[in-house]
């Protein structure tokens, strides 16, 4: 019989106690953290939805791999197990381990991007954008039209706008576009997937123009499962085979293993270009580590190899996508504005519509993040004008395309009760939303300001 209740395809083997706080304590704590959720001590958070990056629960197999790590500096067994697994799933010739995803991006863009160059992406994520801009490049977002319509039920809102891409490629020489990148799933755009058809078209455009095509692959398994569910022709294809096809259209990828590999640390960079890999390894040695460990402990290479296998399990992916949908459906039923359809790793509350009386440069997403922490001790992150509003080169601030509060769900960590508690807290803030005030930035650095910016509440 087909059960309606969705259950986790695992049971709990190790727990981590959570400290509970009172509302009064949280009022004080968030003030001390300058109203920036990044600056809260983790132990003062009840449900931590700041990120799904590096915060997942490894399996007993993953922990066994941790114990099996070969920590030899050069040529460790862990390296070969890691490399062979990556090659098997991702299919690229060259595998370069890095301590995490942003280091892979840093190396890739450092080698390819020069001042004035343009990097098209469906939507750049924060560290990706920072890395492009740090090298003097222009990070150009080309999301598809449907992504702008919060109410649209189009299943592949992560797609790139093909016409816009064609225009950019036609208007610029190939030398000016060092690579085209697609983020799967599209994190800043609501964790929305990209269709295989879209990937094929982008690949065709890139190959015709002789421009390398890269995937930011950190949620490749979730994206693959969306394709299986919603793209005709893939109903009976296993996620691993969908992933392999996805990568077959690309020339390389960056990967943060802290997402779709269940790892607490680690990442890698892949390419089919041996010459390029050679240049990349020269930088790797300088900033990361020797090419057979790249700044990772042997045990972490082994844990990633296990995680990459586990993440592609169909039952796990069913559970993962269904649990996101569970939260989104309940929020919709309560009339709370949320990005739909449900994404793969996070719930995105539309803070602009939740708090329409707060203008974008008074940071409604940040204000909502602060209120949700005070209400329930839940930590989320603003994805809006705080994260993307400031051009670090001109110093000009403009409203972001959309003001969101992202509640990212760590993999295999929280139960349905935790999600029910979350729904209750969001509902309570919704009920008193008219009293929520905007924010002002008191102090912030030039790059990636959202991590360390200090805020004040407006009177």
């Amino acid at each position: 019989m087909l059960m309606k209740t969705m259950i986790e395809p695992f049971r709990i083997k190790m727990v981590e106690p959570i400290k509970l706080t009172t509302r009064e304590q949280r009022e004080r704590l968030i003030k001390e953290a300058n109203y920036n959720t990044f600056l809260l001590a983790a132990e003062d958070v009840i449900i931590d939805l700041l990120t799904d990056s590096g915060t997942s629960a490894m399996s007993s197999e993953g922990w066994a791999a941790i114990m099996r790590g070969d920590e030899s500096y050069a040529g460790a067994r862990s390296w070969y197990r890691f490399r062979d697994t990556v090659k098997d799933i991702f299919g690229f010739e060259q595998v370069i381990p890095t301590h995490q995803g942003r280091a892979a991006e840093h190396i890739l863009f450092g080698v390819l991007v020069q001042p004035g160059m343009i990097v098209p992406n469906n939507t750049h994520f924060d560290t990706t954008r920072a890395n492009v801009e740090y090298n003097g490049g222009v990070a150009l977002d080309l999301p598809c039209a449907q992504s702008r319509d919060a109410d649209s039920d189009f299943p592949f809102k992560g797609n790139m706008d093909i016409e816009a891409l064609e225009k950019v490629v036609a208007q610029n020489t190939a030398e000016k576009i060092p690579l085209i990148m697609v983020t799967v799933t599209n994190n800043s755009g609501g964790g929305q997937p990209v269709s295989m058809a879209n990937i094929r078209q982008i690949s065709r455009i890139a190959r015709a123009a002789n421009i390398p095509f890269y995937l930011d692959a950190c949620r490749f398994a979730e994206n693959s499962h969306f394709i299986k569910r919603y793209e005709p022709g893939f109903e009976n294809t296993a996620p691993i085979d969908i992933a392999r096809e996805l990568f077959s259209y690309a020339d390389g990828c960056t990967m943060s293993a802290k997402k779709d590999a269940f790892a607490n640390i680690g990442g890698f960079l892949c390419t089919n270009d041996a010459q390029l890999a050679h240049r990349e390894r020269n930088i790797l040695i300088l900033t990361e580590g020797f090419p057979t460990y790249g700044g990772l402990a042997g045990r972490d290479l082994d844990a990633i190899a296990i995680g990459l296998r586990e993440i592609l399990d169909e039952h796990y992916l069913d559970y993962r996508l269904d649990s996101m949908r569970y939260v989104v459906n309940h929020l919709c039923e309560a009339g709370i504005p949320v990005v739909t359809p449900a994404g793969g790793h996070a719930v995105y509350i539309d803070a602009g519509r939740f708090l329409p009386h707060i203008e974008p440069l008074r940071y409604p997403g940040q204000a909502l993040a602060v209120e949700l922490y005070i209400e329930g001790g839940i930590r989320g992150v603003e994805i809006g004008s705080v994260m993307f509003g400031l051009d670090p080169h001109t110093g000009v601030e403009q409203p972001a395309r959309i003001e969101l509060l992202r509640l990212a769900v760590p993999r295999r960590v929280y139960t349905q009760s935790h999600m029910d508690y979350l729904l209750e807290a969001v509902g309570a803030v919704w009920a008193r939303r008219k009293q929520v005030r905007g924010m002002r930035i008191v102090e912030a650095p030039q790059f990636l300001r959202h991590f360390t910016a200090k805020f004040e509440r407006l009177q």
Partner: protein
Amino acid sequence: MTARNWAEPYKIKMVELIKQTSREDRLKAMREAGYNTFLLRSEDVYIDLLTDSGVGAMSDRQWAGIMMGDEAYAGSRNFYHLRDTVEQYYSYKFTVPCHQGRGAENILSQILISPGDYVPGNMYFTTTRLHQELAGATFVDVIVDEAHDPDSHYPFKGNVDFDKLDALLDEVGADKIPYVCIATCVNMAGGQPISMANLKQLRAWCDKSGIMLVHDMTRVAENAHFIQQREDGYQDTSVRDIVYEICALTDAATMSSKKDAMVNIGGFLAMNDAKFYEKACGLVVVYEGLHTYGGMAGRDMEALSIGITESVQDDHIHARVGQVQYLGRRLRESGIPIVNPIGGHAVFLNATRMLPHIVQDHFPAQALSAALYIESGVRSMERGIVSAGRDKLTGENHKPKLELVRLTIPRRVYTQAHMDVTVGAVEEVMARRDQIKGLRFTYEPEVLRFFQARFEQIV
């Protein structure tokens, strides 16, 4: 037999199996690795003395720390523990975690150095010098002359020669010297310590010139042990107190915790200046990770905090250095030419003396390292002309006075029997040294060439 005054202050709780190989296997493996021990597979190595970095055995307490990781992206409790531990044992007020030592060097160099600067130091280290050069500085060696004489028994070969330092100051002026970089237990000199008296004099010199003093502290505990053993007035001071005193004489530090602190991954940048800390927080997020994890998993920060407390225990460091001294003394008794005095983390074979028939341009230390592997399966590292690289302006080989092979002892990993086997292996190589041939490059990388270079024998 002399009565020994130490035994390992621990017993074995977990083992890792190693395999012996035949001479034919090793000949083949070495040829495939291009006569570069870095390119061997660890499973083909019997006793791995390539490095002491990241290869130490953690204690059961450190492993317990691994299980206590708080993997929250921001404000992990392991970060606060690490910060407090660094201040308690090393005196520095602010700590910025980094995925490993070179990550800290990268950030330090970018913040403090302006193009055209000079950075004096007590002998170069490969990655440190390269980061200084990339930031636009020129490294100037101000170590005492004794450091370059392998036969001198001077007890503090890591000392600074103030005539050299004054000469540089007179020539370029204090404005062009952003900081003096001082390593404790100088690796390239053979693991040689700096004396407390010399360091105090350096502190006074820096104060007078208004120049910052930065500490490369990766082997500070071993340096402290030598001060306790050799310097007047410190016989009754604990290693822990000496370590603190050393650190308190300096303004900032880079740490690769993969050495002294016995972790497999991790490091940090530490300082007392709040402005410097803020700059480092802004930069660490671009290269490493948010400033409360800096590219380290929470569990690794926890293991590091525990490792720091273990690393400064007198019994531990006595046994640690005692094992290295044991290996060195036995080699010396067999008539093997080694660097004197015996250092804290490694025994350095004098390849110039062992292979007088090979000229420096034919890489005697590289050849010796390859021969030692083929003979016995012991993996060592070249520290001579190959490691020294080329002059960034002339393109000529740097010709270091020391042409050495480093037998580096991982902490708490190998037993006395392993040391005895190593002695036997070196004796064998010594007996048939006339048959060892010089090498030439078949592939020479542009930067840090020793890591990935390939060679062939000159027949």
